[in-house]
Protein backbone atom coordinates (compact mmCIF):
# COMPACT_ATOMS: atom_id res chain seq x y z
CA UNK A 1 0.00 0.00 0.00
CA UNK A 2 1.37 3.36 -1.01
CA UNK A 3 0.46 6.29 1.18
CA UNK A 4 1.19 9.98 0.83
CA UNK A 5 0.96 12.25 3.86
CA UNK A 6 0.70 16.01 3.40
CA UNK A 7 2.16 17.83 6.32
CA UNK A 8 2.81 21.38 7.36
CA UNK A 9 5.43 22.84 9.61
CA UNK A 10 3.83 25.17 12.13
CA UNK A 11 4.67 27.17 15.24
CA UNK A 12 4.72 25.16 18.44
CA UNK A 13 1.42 25.46 20.32
CA UNK A 14 3.23 27.17 23.19
CA UNK A 15 4.62 29.88 20.90
CA UNK A 16 3.92 33.41 21.96
CA UNK A 17 2.81 35.39 18.92
CA UNK A 18 4.24 38.87 18.35
CA UNK A 19 4.41 41.22 15.38
CA UNK A 20 7.64 42.46 13.88
CA UNK A 21 8.41 46.07 12.92
CA UNK A 22 6.65 45.69 9.57
CA UNK A 23 3.49 44.36 11.19
CA UNK A 24 4.03 40.76 10.09
CA UNK A 25 3.95 37.72 12.35
CA UNK A 26 7.35 37.48 14.01
CA UNK A 27 8.96 34.13 13.24
CA UNK A 28 12.15 34.74 15.21
CA UNK A 29 12.95 32.29 17.95
CA UNK A 30 9.80 30.23 17.50
CA UNK A 31 10.05 26.45 17.82
CA UNK A 32 8.65 24.71 14.76
CA UNK A 33 6.80 21.41 14.86
CA UNK A 34 4.75 19.16 12.59
CA UNK A 35 1.16 20.36 12.68
CA UNK A 36 -0.32 18.06 15.35
CA UNK A 37 -3.24 16.97 13.15
CA UNK A 38 -0.74 16.03 10.43
CA UNK A 39 1.26 14.05 12.94
CA UNK A 40 -1.79 11.86 13.54
CA UNK A 41 -1.81 11.31 9.77
CA UNK A 42 1.85 10.25 9.75
CA UNK A 43 1.16 7.81 12.57
CA UNK A 44 -1.91 6.35 10.86
CA UNK A 45 0.01 5.92 7.62
CA UNK A 46 2.81 4.12 9.44
CA UNK A 47 0.33 1.78 11.13
CA UNK A 48 -1.20 0.92 7.75
CA UNK A 49 2.24 0.33 6.33
CA UNK A 50 3.07 -1.99 9.21
CA UNK A 51 -0.11 -3.91 8.55
CA UNK A 52 -0.05 -4.10 4.76
CA UNK A 53 3.58 -3.35 3.85
CA UNK A 54 4.21 -0.62 1.36
CA UNK A 55 5.62 2.83 1.48
CA UNK A 56 4.89 6.14 3.15
CA UNK A 57 5.89 9.38 1.45
CA UNK A 58 5.63 12.66 3.34
CA UNK A 59 5.30 15.87 1.42
CA UNK A 60 5.25 19.54 2.28
CA UNK A 61 5.29 22.93 0.62
CA UNK A 62 7.67 25.26 2.36
CA UNK A 63 11.12 26.70 2.69
CA UNK A 64 14.22 24.61 3.37
CA UNK A 65 13.44 25.08 7.05
CA UNK A 66 10.53 22.68 6.62
CA UNK A 67 12.99 19.85 6.04
CA UNK A 68 13.17 19.39 9.80
CA UNK A 69 9.46 18.50 9.90
CA UNK A 70 9.95 16.02 7.06
CA UNK A 71 13.01 14.56 8.80
CA UNK A 72 10.97 14.04 11.92
CA UNK A 73 8.35 12.12 9.96
CA UNK A 74 11.14 10.06 8.37
CA UNK A 75 12.49 9.39 11.85
CA UNK A 76 9.05 8.19 12.91
CA UNK A 77 9.23 5.67 10.06
CA UNK A 78 8.18 7.30 6.80
CA UNK A 79 10.23 6.13 3.81
CA UNK A 80 10.61 9.13 1.56
CA UNK A 81 10.12 12.86 1.73
CA UNK A 82 9.29 15.50 -0.86
CA UNK A 83 9.86 19.19 -0.20
CA UNK A 84 8.43 21.63 -2.69
CA UNK A 85 10.10 24.96 -2.14
CA UNK A 86 8.16 27.56 -4.11
CA UNK A 87 10.73 30.24 -3.38
CA UNK A 88 9.87 33.68 -2.19
CA UNK A 89 6.25 34.01 -3.30
CA UNK A 90 3.02 34.59 -1.42
CA UNK A 91 0.88 31.48 -1.11
CA UNK A 92 -2.66 30.98 0.00
CA UNK A 93 -4.50 27.70 0.48
CA UNK A 94 -5.54 27.68 -3.17
CA UNK A 95 -1.95 28.06 -4.38
CA UNK A 96 -0.61 25.53 -1.88
CA UNK A 97 -3.21 23.03 -3.05
CA UNK A 98 -2.31 23.44 -6.71
CA UNK A 99 1.33 22.75 -5.84
CA UNK A 100 0.59 19.78 -3.59
CA UNK A 101 -1.81 18.21 -6.06
CA UNK A 102 0.69 18.58 -8.87
CA UNK A 103 3.45 17.00 -6.83
CA UNK A 104 1.25 14.17 -5.55
CA UNK A 105 0.03 13.42 -9.07
CA UNK A 106 3.56 12.30 -9.93
CA UNK A 107 3.47 9.71 -7.12
CA UNK A 108 1.70 6.40 -6.72
CA UNK A 109 -0.82 6.25 -3.91
CA UNK A 110 -3.73 4.31 -2.50
CA UNK A 111 -4.39 6.84 0.22
CA UNK A 112 -3.53 10.48 0.80
CA UNK A 113 -3.62 11.85 4.32
CA UNK A 114 -3.63 15.32 5.79
CA UNK A 115 -4.54 16.93 9.10
CA UNK A 116 -8.10 18.20 9.20
CA UNK A 117 -6.71 21.65 9.83
CA UNK A 118 -3.47 23.42 10.52
CA UNK A 119 -3.17 24.97 13.94
CA UNK A 120 -1.54 28.13 12.58
CA UNK A 121 -4.00 29.44 10.01
CA UNK A 122 -6.86 27.22 11.18
CA UNK A 123 -8.16 27.07 7.67
CA UNK A 124 -8.98 23.38 7.03
CA UNK A 125 -9.22 23.62 3.26
CA UNK A 126 -6.01 22.40 1.62
CA UNK A 127 -6.87 18.69 1.91
CA UNK A 128 -10.30 19.19 0.35
CA UNK A 129 -8.87 21.25 -2.47
CA UNK A 130 -6.18 18.66 -3.17
CA UNK A 131 -8.81 15.91 -3.08
CA UNK A 132 -10.88 17.77 -5.65
CA UNK A 133 -7.88 18.45 -7.88
CA UNK A 134 -6.88 14.77 -7.75
CA UNK A 135 -10.46 13.53 -8.07
CA UNK A 136 -10.33 11.71 -4.72
CA UNK A 137 -13.27 11.15 -2.39
CA UNK A 138 -12.72 13.02 0.89
CA UNK A 139 -13.49 12.06 4.45
CA UNK A 140 -12.66 14.77 7.00
CA UNK A 141 -12.10 14.64 10.79
CA UNK A 142 -11.45 10.93 10.97
CA UNK A 143 -11.07 9.32 14.39
CA UNK A 144 -10.97 5.66 13.33
CA UNK A 145 -9.92 4.12 10.06
CA UNK A 146 -10.08 0.64 8.58
CA UNK A 147 -8.68 -0.07 5.16
CA UNK A 148 -9.37 -3.31 3.29
CA UNK A 149 -10.47 -4.61 -0.10
CA UNK A 150 -9.93 -1.34 -1.91
CA UNK A 151 -12.11 0.57 0.52
CA UNK A 152 -11.61 2.82 3.51
CA UNK A 153 -14.18 2.72 6.28
CA UNK A 154 -13.78 5.80 8.42
CA UNK A 155 -15.47 6.92 11.59
CA UNK A 156 -15.44 10.68 11.60
CA UNK A 157 -16.72 13.57 13.65
CA UNK A 158 -19.78 15.40 12.41
CA UNK A 159 -21.55 18.25 14.18
CA UNK A 160 -23.21 16.73 17.21
CA UNK A 161 -22.01 13.18 16.72
CA UNK A 162 -20.10 10.84 14.50
CA UNK A 163 -20.64 8.89 11.35
CA UNK A 164 -19.16 5.82 9.68
CA UNK A 165 -18.45 6.44 6.00
CA UNK A 166 -17.10 4.13 3.35
CA UNK A 167 -15.18 5.43 0.36
CA UNK A 168 -13.37 3.65 -2.45
CA UNK A 169 -9.59 3.94 -2.68
CA UNK A 170 -7.70 5.99 -3.53
CA UNK A 171 -9.13 8.50 -1.09
CA UNK A 172 -8.17 11.57 0.90
CA UNK A 173 -8.49 11.20 4.66
CA UNK A 174 -7.99 14.00 7.18
CA UNK A 175 -7.08 13.22 10.76
CA UNK A 176 -8.78 14.45 13.89
CA UNK A 177 -7.73 14.27 17.53
CA UNK A 178 -8.41 10.78 18.85
CA UNK A 179 -7.31 8.87 15.74
CA UNK A 180 -4.17 7.57 17.43
CA UNK A 181 -1.20 8.47 19.61
CA UNK A 182 1.73 9.47 17.43
CA UNK A 183 4.95 7.64 18.27
CA UNK A 184 8.16 9.35 19.22
CA UNK A 185 11.04 8.81 16.82
CA UNK A 186 13.51 6.28 18.21
CA UNK A 187 17.26 6.98 18.22
CA UNK A 188 17.59 4.34 15.52
CA UNK A 189 14.84 6.04 13.54
CA UNK A 190 16.55 9.40 13.84
CA UNK A 191 19.83 7.91 12.58
CA UNK A 192 18.11 6.15 9.69
CA UNK A 193 16.16 9.27 8.74
CA UNK A 194 19.38 11.00 7.77
CA UNK A 195 19.92 8.48 5.01
CA UNK A 196 16.37 8.40 3.68
CA UNK A 197 15.68 10.14 0.37
CA UNK A 198 14.50 13.74 0.45
CA UNK A 199 13.48 15.07 -2.94
CA UNK A 200 13.61 18.84 -3.30
CA UNK A 201 11.48 20.37 -6.02
CA UNK A 202 10.92 23.88 -7.27
CA UNK A 203 7.80 25.15 -9.00
CA UNK A 204 9.62 24.82 -12.32
CA UNK A 205 10.41 21.17 -11.56
CA UNK A 206 6.65 20.62 -11.31
CA UNK A 207 6.03 22.48 -14.52
CA UNK A 208 4.31 25.32 -12.69
CA UNK A 209 4.93 29.01 -13.02
CA UNK A 210 4.00 31.80 -10.62
CA UNK A 211 0.91 32.76 -12.63
CA UNK A 212 -0.63 29.34 -11.97
CA UNK A 213 -0.27 29.72 -8.22
CA UNK A 214 -1.49 33.28 -7.83
CA UNK A 215 -3.22 33.56 -4.48
CA UNK A 216 -6.92 34.34 -4.31
CA UNK A 217 -6.96 35.77 -0.83
CA UNK A 218 -4.80 38.46 0.67
CA UNK A 219 -4.00 39.31 4.27
CA UNK A 220 -4.33 43.09 4.63
CA UNK A 221 -2.95 43.37 8.13
CA UNK A 222 -2.15 41.44 11.27
CA UNK A 223 -2.94 42.49 14.79
CA UNK A 224 -2.93 41.09 18.27
CA UNK A 225 -6.13 40.68 20.24
CA UNK A 226 -6.59 43.27 22.94
CA UNK A 227 -5.47 41.51 26.08
CA UNK A 228 -8.25 40.50 28.38
CA UNK A 229 -8.29 42.49 31.56
CA UNK A 230 -7.87 40.23 34.53
CA UNK A 231 -11.10 40.62 36.41
CA UNK A 232 -11.54 40.30 40.10
CA UNK A 233 -11.08 37.50 42.52
CA UNK A 234 -14.16 37.21 44.66
CA UNK A 235 -13.00 36.60 48.21
CA UNK A 236 -14.69 34.78 51.04
CA UNK A 237 -15.89 31.35 52.00
CA UNK A 238 -17.37 29.32 49.14
CA UNK A 239 -20.98 30.16 49.97
CA UNK A 240 -20.32 33.88 50.24
CA UNK A 241 -18.13 33.96 47.16
CA UNK A 242 -20.69 32.05 45.11
CA UNK A 243 -23.51 34.38 46.14
CA UNK A 244 -21.39 37.35 45.16
CA UNK A 245 -20.44 35.69 41.87
CA UNK A 246 -24.02 34.92 40.90
CA UNK A 247 -25.02 38.49 41.71
CA UNK A 248 -22.19 39.82 39.55
CA UNK A 249 -23.08 37.53 36.65
CA UNK A 250 -26.64 38.73 36.83
CA UNK A 251 -26.32 42.43 37.55
CA UNK A 252 -22.87 43.39 36.30
CA UNK A 253 -22.01 41.05 33.44
CA UNK A 254 -25.70 40.39 32.65
CA UNK A 255 -24.92 36.94 31.28
CA UNK A 256 -27.46 34.85 33.18
Amino acid at each position, binding site marked *: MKIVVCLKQVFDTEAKITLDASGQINKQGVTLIINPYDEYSVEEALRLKEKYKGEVTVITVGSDEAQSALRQALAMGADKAVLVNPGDIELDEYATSIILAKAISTLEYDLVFGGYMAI*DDGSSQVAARVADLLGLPL*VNTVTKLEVADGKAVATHDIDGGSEV*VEVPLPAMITSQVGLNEPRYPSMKGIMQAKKKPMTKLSLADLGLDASQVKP*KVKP*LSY*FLPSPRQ*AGRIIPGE*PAEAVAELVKA*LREEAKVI
Partner: protein
Amino acid sequence: MAKGIWVFVEQRDGKVRKVTYELLSEGRKIVDNFGGELAAVLVGSNVSDMAASFGEYGADKVYVVDRPELANYTTDGYSNVLAELIKKYEPAVVLLGCTLGGRDLSAMVAQKVNTGLLTDCTDMYLEDGNLVFVRPIYAGKALTKVCCLDTSPIMATIRPNVFAVSEPQAGRAAEVIKEDVPPGDIRQIIKEVVMQISTRPELTEANVVVSGGRGLKGPEGFALLEQLADVLGAAIGASRAAVDAGWIPHSLQVGQTGKTVSPVLYIACGISGAIQHLAGMSSSKCIVAINKDPEANIFKVADYGIVGDLFDVVPILTEELKKVLAS
Protein backbone atom coordinates in the same frame (compact mmCIF):
# COMPACT_ATOMS: atom_id res chain seq x y z
CA MET B 1 -23.08 43.36 -3.75
CA ALA B 2 -24.87 43.55 -7.05
CA LYS B 3 -25.45 39.81 -7.27
CA GLY B 4 -26.12 39.45 -3.63
CA ILE B 5 -25.16 37.42 -0.64
CA TRP B 6 -25.95 33.74 -0.27
CA VAL B 7 -26.21 31.96 3.04
CA PHE B 8 -26.00 28.17 3.00
CA VAL B 9 -28.64 26.67 5.29
CA GLU B 10 -27.12 24.10 7.56
CA GLN B 11 -29.78 21.64 8.61
CA ARG B 12 -30.11 18.05 9.67
CA ASP B 13 -33.48 16.31 9.56
CA GLY B 14 -35.12 19.68 9.06
CA LYS B 15 -33.54 21.21 12.15
CA VAL B 16 -31.67 24.38 11.20
CA ARG B 17 -28.51 25.38 13.04
CA LYS B 18 -28.56 28.73 14.76
CA VAL B 19 -25.52 29.96 12.83
CA THR B 20 -27.67 29.99 9.66
CA TYR B 21 -29.97 32.58 11.23
CA GLU B 22 -26.95 34.52 12.49
CA LEU B 23 -25.58 34.75 8.95
CA LEU B 24 -28.95 35.69 7.46
CA SER B 25 -29.32 38.44 10.07
CA GLU B 26 -25.87 39.89 9.38
CA GLY B 27 -26.22 39.40 5.62
CA ARG B 28 -29.50 41.33 5.76
CA LYS B 29 -27.74 44.30 7.36
CA ILE B 30 -25.09 44.34 4.66
CA VAL B 31 -27.53 44.21 1.74
CA ASP B 32 -29.77 46.81 3.42
CA ASN B 33 -26.88 49.24 3.59
CA PHE B 34 -25.22 48.50 0.30
CA GLY B 35 -27.85 47.03 -1.97
CA GLY B 36 -28.23 43.63 -3.55
CA GLU B 37 -30.31 40.76 -2.36
CA LEU B 38 -29.98 38.12 0.30
CA ALA B 39 -30.64 34.50 -0.53
CA ALA B 40 -30.74 31.33 1.53
CA VAL B 41 -29.65 28.10 -0.14
CA LEU B 42 -31.44 25.04 1.15
CA VAL B 43 -30.23 21.61 0.15
CA GLY B 44 -31.68 18.34 1.41
CA SER B 45 -34.51 15.88 1.11
CA ASN B 46 -38.09 16.79 2.03
CA VAL B 47 -36.99 20.28 2.94
CA SER B 48 -39.13 22.30 0.52
CA ASP B 49 -41.82 22.97 3.11
CA MET B 50 -39.44 24.90 5.30
CA ALA B 51 -38.06 27.07 2.47
CA ALA B 52 -40.42 30.02 2.82
CA SER B 53 -39.61 30.42 6.53
CA PHE B 54 -36.21 31.93 5.74
CA GLY B 55 -38.01 35.04 4.49
CA GLU B 56 -38.82 35.84 8.10
CA TYR B 57 -35.11 35.85 8.84
CA GLY B 58 -34.33 38.28 6.05
CA ALA B 59 -33.90 36.21 2.89
CA ASP B 60 -35.32 37.72 -0.30
CA LYS B 61 -34.95 34.47 -2.17
CA VAL B 62 -34.55 30.85 -1.19
CA TYR B 63 -32.93 28.45 -3.63
CA VAL B 64 -34.04 24.91 -2.89
CA VAL B 65 -32.63 21.63 -4.10
CA ASP B 66 -34.79 18.85 -2.72
CA ARG B 67 -33.82 15.32 -3.74
CA PRO B 68 -33.87 11.96 -1.99
CA GLU B 69 -30.11 11.43 -2.54
CA LEU B 70 -29.50 14.50 -0.40
CA ALA B 71 -31.25 13.19 2.72
CA ASN B 72 -27.87 12.76 4.38
CA TYR B 73 -25.08 15.25 4.08
CA THR B 74 -22.26 13.91 1.93
CA THR B 75 -19.25 15.88 0.81
CA ASP B 76 -19.69 14.87 -2.82
CA GLY B 77 -23.46 15.31 -3.07
CA TYR B 78 -23.71 18.66 -1.32
CA SER B 79 -20.57 20.17 -2.85
CA ASN B 80 -21.64 19.20 -6.38
CA VAL B 81 -25.05 20.79 -5.86
CA LEU B 82 -23.80 23.99 -4.24
CA ALA B 83 -21.04 24.43 -6.81
CA GLU B 84 -23.52 24.04 -9.67
CA LEU B 85 -25.88 26.60 -8.16
CA ILE B 86 -23.01 29.07 -7.70
CA LYS B 87 -21.92 28.61 -11.30
CA LYS B 88 -25.46 29.20 -12.53
CA TYR B 89 -26.37 32.26 -10.45
CA GLU B 90 -22.93 33.77 -9.72
CA PRO B 91 -23.59 35.27 -6.29
CA ALA B 92 -21.08 37.87 -5.10
CA VAL B 93 -20.68 36.34 -1.65
CA VAL B 94 -21.33 32.88 -0.23
CA LEU B 95 -21.39 32.46 3.54
CA LEU B 96 -21.45 29.27 5.60
CA GLY B 97 -21.20 28.61 9.30
CA CYS B 98 -17.78 27.49 10.49
CA THR B 99 -19.03 24.19 11.80
CA LEU B 100 -17.50 20.83 10.90
CA GLY B 101 -20.03 20.53 8.09
CA GLY B 102 -19.43 24.09 6.93
CA ARG B 103 -15.68 23.58 6.87
CA ASP B 104 -16.06 20.36 4.89
CA LEU B 105 -18.48 21.76 2.34
CA SER B 106 -16.96 25.21 1.85
CA ALA B 107 -13.46 23.98 1.03
CA MET B 108 -14.65 21.49 -1.57
CA VAL B 109 -17.02 24.00 -3.17
CA ALA B 110 -14.40 26.77 -3.21
CA GLN B 111 -12.12 24.51 -5.22
CA LYS B 112 -14.89 23.41 -7.56
CA VAL B 113 -15.76 27.02 -8.39
CA ASN B 114 -12.10 28.02 -8.40
CA THR B 115 -12.30 30.73 -5.79
CA GLY B 116 -10.72 31.80 -2.51
CA LEU B 117 -12.10 30.88 0.90
CA LEU B 118 -11.72 32.59 4.25
CA THR B 119 -12.49 30.23 7.09
CA ASP B 120 -13.42 30.71 10.73
CA CYS B 121 -14.05 34.45 10.39
CA THR B 122 -15.16 36.37 13.46
CA ASP B 123 -16.13 39.59 11.71
CA MET B 124 -16.99 40.90 8.26
CA TYR B 125 -17.68 44.44 7.08
CA LEU B 126 -17.44 46.66 4.05
CA GLU B 127 -14.41 48.88 3.84
CA ASP B 128 -13.86 51.14 0.81
CA GLY B 129 -16.45 49.11 -1.07
CA ASN B 130 -14.71 45.80 -0.39
CA LEU B 131 -15.97 43.10 1.88
CA VAL B 132 -13.23 42.34 4.39
CA PHE B 133 -13.10 39.64 7.01
CA VAL B 134 -11.32 39.21 10.30
CA ARG B 135 -10.02 35.79 11.20
CA PRO B 136 -8.18 34.55 14.25
CA ILE B 137 -4.93 32.76 13.49
CA TYR B 138 -2.70 30.79 15.82
CA ALA B 139 -5.93 29.84 17.57
CA GLY B 140 -6.71 33.43 18.41
CA LYS B 141 -3.26 34.48 19.57
CA ALA B 142 -3.29 36.87 16.60
CA LEU B 143 -5.86 38.13 14.12
CA THR B 144 -5.69 39.02 10.49
CA LYS B 145 -7.84 41.20 8.29
CA VAL B 146 -8.23 39.53 4.90
CA CYS B 147 -9.95 40.08 1.58
CA CYS B 148 -10.39 38.20 -1.65
CA LEU B 149 -8.44 39.19 -4.74
CA ASP B 150 -10.41 39.48 -8.01
CA THR B 151 -12.08 36.17 -7.36
CA SER B 152 -15.74 35.37 -7.43
CA PRO B 153 -17.63 34.52 -5.41
CA ILE B 154 -16.10 35.64 -2.15
CA MET B 155 -16.54 32.60 0.09
CA ALA B 156 -16.23 32.58 3.85
CA THR B 157 -17.17 30.48 6.82
CA ILE B 158 -18.18 32.43 9.91
CA ARG B 159 -17.75 31.17 13.44
CA PRO B 160 -21.02 30.51 15.27
CA ASN B 161 -22.07 32.98 17.97
CA VAL B 162 -20.29 36.04 16.59
CA PHE B 163 -23.37 37.68 15.05
CA ALA B 164 -26.71 38.14 16.77
CA VAL B 165 -29.93 36.71 15.35
CA SER B 166 -32.38 39.49 14.44
CA GLU B 167 -35.97 39.18 15.53
CA PRO B 168 -37.79 37.19 12.80
CA GLN B 169 -40.43 39.19 10.96
CA ALA B 170 -43.56 37.09 10.97
CA GLY B 171 -45.12 36.81 7.55
CA ARG B 172 -42.18 38.29 5.62
CA ALA B 173 -42.08 36.30 2.42
CA ALA B 174 -39.21 35.07 0.31
CA GLU B 175 -39.38 34.00 -3.29
CA VAL B 176 -38.77 30.25 -3.40
CA ILE B 177 -36.82 29.04 -6.42
CA LYS B 178 -36.70 25.29 -6.89
CA GLU B 179 -33.71 23.93 -8.70
CA ASP B 180 -33.27 20.35 -9.72
CA VAL B 181 -29.53 19.89 -9.64
CA PRO B 182 -28.24 16.31 -9.83
CA PRO B 183 -25.85 15.53 -6.98
CA GLY B 184 -23.50 13.62 -9.27
CA ASP B 185 -21.46 10.64 -8.18
CA ILE B 186 -21.65 10.38 -4.39
CA ARG B 187 -18.69 8.31 -3.28
CA GLN B 188 -19.17 8.64 0.48
CA ILE B 189 -21.46 5.81 1.53
CA ILE B 190 -22.86 6.44 4.97
CA LYS B 191 -22.93 3.23 7.01
CA GLU B 192 -23.96 4.55 10.35
CA VAL B 193 -24.77 7.85 12.05
CA VAL B 194 -24.40 8.16 15.79
CA MET B 195 -25.73 11.41 17.18
CA GLN B 196 -24.80 12.08 20.75
CA ILE B 197 -27.98 11.62 22.69
CA SER B 198 -27.71 14.75 24.63
CA THR B 199 -30.00 17.54 25.54
CA ARG B 200 -26.94 19.74 25.65
CA PRO B 201 -26.20 22.33 23.02
CA GLU B 202 -23.30 21.66 20.71
CA LEU B 203 -20.06 22.88 22.25
CA THR B 204 -19.09 25.35 19.52
CA GLU B 205 -22.57 26.86 19.41
CA ALA B 206 -23.43 26.92 23.09
CA ASN B 207 -24.21 30.16 24.88
CA VAL B 208 -22.80 28.77 28.10
CA VAL B 209 -19.92 26.33 28.45
CA VAL B 210 -18.93 24.63 31.69
CA SER B 211 -15.43 23.27 31.32
CA GLY B 212 -13.26 21.05 33.49
CA GLY B 213 -9.57 20.27 33.73
CA ARG B 214 -7.02 18.37 35.71
CA GLY B 215 -8.48 19.71 38.95
CA LEU B 216 -11.51 17.46 38.50
CA LYS B 217 -9.23 14.55 39.44
CA GLY B 218 -11.19 11.95 37.48
CA PRO B 219 -14.26 11.22 35.38
CA GLU B 220 -16.42 11.48 38.50
CA GLY B 221 -15.51 15.15 38.67
CA PHE B 222 -17.35 15.70 35.44
CA ALA B 223 -20.55 14.48 37.07
CA LEU B 224 -20.43 17.63 39.20
CA LEU B 225 -20.05 19.74 36.10
CA GLU B 226 -22.96 17.96 34.45
CA GLN B 227 -25.22 19.13 37.26
CA LEU B 228 -24.01 22.70 36.88
CA ALA B 229 -24.41 22.49 33.10
CA ASP B 230 -27.95 21.13 33.50
CA VAL B 231 -28.97 24.21 35.46
CA LEU B 232 -27.49 26.56 32.88
CA GLY B 233 -28.44 24.64 29.74
CA ALA B 234 -24.73 24.62 29.07
CA ALA B 235 -22.41 22.51 26.97
CA ILE B 236 -19.60 20.61 28.67
CA GLY B 237 -16.01 21.27 27.66
CA ALA B 238 -12.63 20.14 28.87
CA SER B 239 -8.98 21.02 28.86
CA ARG B 240 -6.46 18.82 27.13
CA ALA B 241 -5.26 17.49 30.48
CA ALA B 242 -8.68 16.02 31.23
CA VAL B 243 -8.97 14.58 27.73
CA ASP B 244 -5.47 13.07 27.75
CA ALA B 245 -6.24 11.49 31.11
CA GLY B 246 -9.16 9.75 29.42
CA TRP B 247 -11.82 11.29 31.66
CA ILE B 248 -13.84 12.74 28.81
CA PRO B 249 -13.96 12.28 25.01
CA HIS B 250 -11.64 14.14 22.66
CA SER B 251 -14.62 15.74 21.00
CA LEU B 252 -15.14 17.96 24.04
CA GLN B 253 -11.61 19.37 24.15
CA VAL B 254 -11.42 23.16 24.02
CA GLY B 255 -8.17 24.68 22.81
CA GLN B 256 -5.69 24.98 20.00
CA THR B 257 -5.88 21.29 19.12
CA GLY B 258 -9.51 21.06 20.11
CA LYS B 259 -12.54 23.20 19.59
CA THR B 260 -12.76 26.96 19.67
CA VAL B 261 -15.70 28.28 21.62
CA SER B 262 -17.18 31.76 21.86
CA PRO B 263 -19.95 31.49 24.44
CA VAL B 264 -21.49 34.32 26.40
CA LEU B 265 -20.38 32.63 29.62
CA TYR B 266 -17.47 30.22 30.09
CA ILE B 267 -17.02 28.61 33.50
CA ALA B 268 -13.58 27.02 33.89
CA CYS B 269 -13.37 24.56 36.78
CA GLY B 270 -10.03 23.18 37.86
CA ILE B 271 -8.37 24.48 34.70
CA SER B 272 -4.95 26.03 35.14
CA GLY B 273 -5.05 27.99 31.89
CA ALA B 274 -2.33 26.64 29.60
CA ILE B 275 -1.82 28.91 26.61
CA GLN B 276 -3.29 26.28 24.24
CA HIS B 277 -6.48 26.17 26.28
CA LEU B 278 -6.76 29.94 26.55
CA ALA B 279 -6.44 30.16 22.78
CA GLY B 280 -9.62 28.13 22.41
CA MET B 281 -11.82 30.05 24.82
CA SER B 282 -10.52 33.58 25.25
CA SER B 283 -13.12 35.04 22.91
CA SER B 284 -15.79 34.09 25.44
CA LYS B 285 -17.71 37.16 26.54
CA CYS B 286 -17.50 36.46 30.27
CA ILE B 287 -15.10 34.01 31.88
CA VAL B 288 -15.46 32.61 35.37
CA ALA B 289 -12.61 30.60 36.87
CA ILE B 290 -12.75 28.32 39.88
CA ASN B 291 -9.36 27.00 40.91
CA LYS B 292 -7.48 26.17 44.10
CA ASP B 293 -4.26 27.78 42.91
CA PRO B 294 -4.42 31.57 43.19
CA GLU B 295 -1.45 31.79 40.80
CA ALA B 296 -3.20 29.84 38.03
CA ASN B 297 -3.00 31.52 34.61
CA ILE B 298 -6.72 31.20 34.13
CA PHE B 299 -7.23 34.02 36.64
CA LYS B 300 -5.34 36.38 34.32
CA VAL B 301 -8.09 36.14 31.72
CA ALA B 302 -11.10 35.52 33.96
CA ASP B 303 -13.63 38.25 34.60
CA TYR B 304 -14.51 36.63 37.90
CA GLY B 305 -12.45 34.21 39.89
CA ILE B 306 -13.05 32.14 42.96
CA VAL B 307 -9.97 30.71 44.62
CA GLY B 308 -11.17 27.51 46.20
CA ASP B 309 -11.70 23.80 45.90
CA LEU B 310 -14.08 23.18 43.02
CA PHE B 311 -15.53 20.20 44.88
CA ASP B 312 -16.78 22.70 47.49
CA VAL B 313 -17.59 25.59 45.19
CA VAL B 314 -19.32 23.95 42.21
CA PRO B 315 -22.14 22.25 44.16
CA ILE B 316 -22.90 25.51 45.95
CA LEU B 317 -22.83 27.39 42.65
CA THR B 318 -25.20 24.83 41.15
CA GLU B 319 -27.66 25.24 44.00
CA GLU B 320 -27.42 29.02 44.02
CA LEU B 321 -28.00 29.24 40.26
CA LYS B 322 -30.94 26.86 40.55
CA LYS B 323 -32.53 29.24 43.04
CA VAL B 324 -31.75 32.40 41.14
CA LEU B 325 -32.78 31.11 37.74
CA ALA B 326 -36.04 29.73 39.12
CA SER B 327 -36.99 33.07 40.61
